[in-house]
């Protein structure tokens, strides 16, 4: 599978496609089944957020290597040009979810990955980067 792979997110079907691309690359680096399941689930949550809250955007999925440890992993960057997240601390609070109750908030998703980085600007958009390393 090619890396990096850029997947546009403009429909519910694209959320499924993001999962499939992430699963393919996670299998390629021989991630354990549990870790594969975790990173694919995290990607599914974030892709849906990008579509529903961000008004669509892009997922960039790539294989990465940690120069310090030599471990390989899968990194996924979600970007959208939506309304942004007005209160990041609140969005990362355990159990918090915005009104529609569609997701579980970001805290659960963050637990499924090793690295989680969020940049958001009200009115400009959101960029969330996650990485899962092989063990």
């Amino acid at each position, binding site marked *: 599978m090619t890396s990096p792979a850029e997947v546009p997110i403009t429909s519910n079907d694209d*959320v499924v496609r993001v*999962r499939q691309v992430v699963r393919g690359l996670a299998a390629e680096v021989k991630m354990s089944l549990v870790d594969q399941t975790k990173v694919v689930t995290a990607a599914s*949550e974030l892709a*849906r957020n990008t579509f529903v809250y961000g008004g669509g955007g892009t997922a960039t999925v790539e294989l990465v290597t940690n120069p310090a440890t030599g471990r390989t992993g899968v990194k996924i960057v979600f970007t959208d040009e939506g309304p942004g997240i007005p209160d990041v601390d609140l969005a990362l609070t355990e159990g918090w979810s915005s009104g529609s109750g569609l997701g579980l908030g970001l805290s659960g998703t963050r637990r499924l990955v090793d690295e989680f980085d969020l940049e958001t600007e009200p009115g400009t958009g959101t960029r969330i980067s996650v990485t899962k390393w092989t063990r």
Partner: protein
Amino acid sequence: MERVPILKIGDTLLVSIQIDLQDQTVLALQEDLAERIVQTQARGVIIDITAVEIVDSFIGRMFATIASMSRLLDAETVVVGMRPAVAITLVELGLSLGGVRTALDLERGMKLLDSGADLR
């Protein structure tokens, strides 16, 4: 959009999920099931997720919604065949699916419904 088929065995409805679920398919399944429960007067619903590789919050919430909905329509729901990796991920995600009955496989799920055990 693909639809998930609903099979009838006696007074049980069997839903075996064999595709990668997208959100619209999930919503359609909930509606289809509600209609079929009433139409067939089914007393039980089994959702077989043996082939399902991931359950995210949207899909997980579907199980809870179907369980509550079918209960209102006088039918009990059992989710069967959850993979170990899916169970681990769901707990870590923070979705414990309280209120949803599970069994390890289809056979145990059928027995659970047949036993007429009070699943509530």
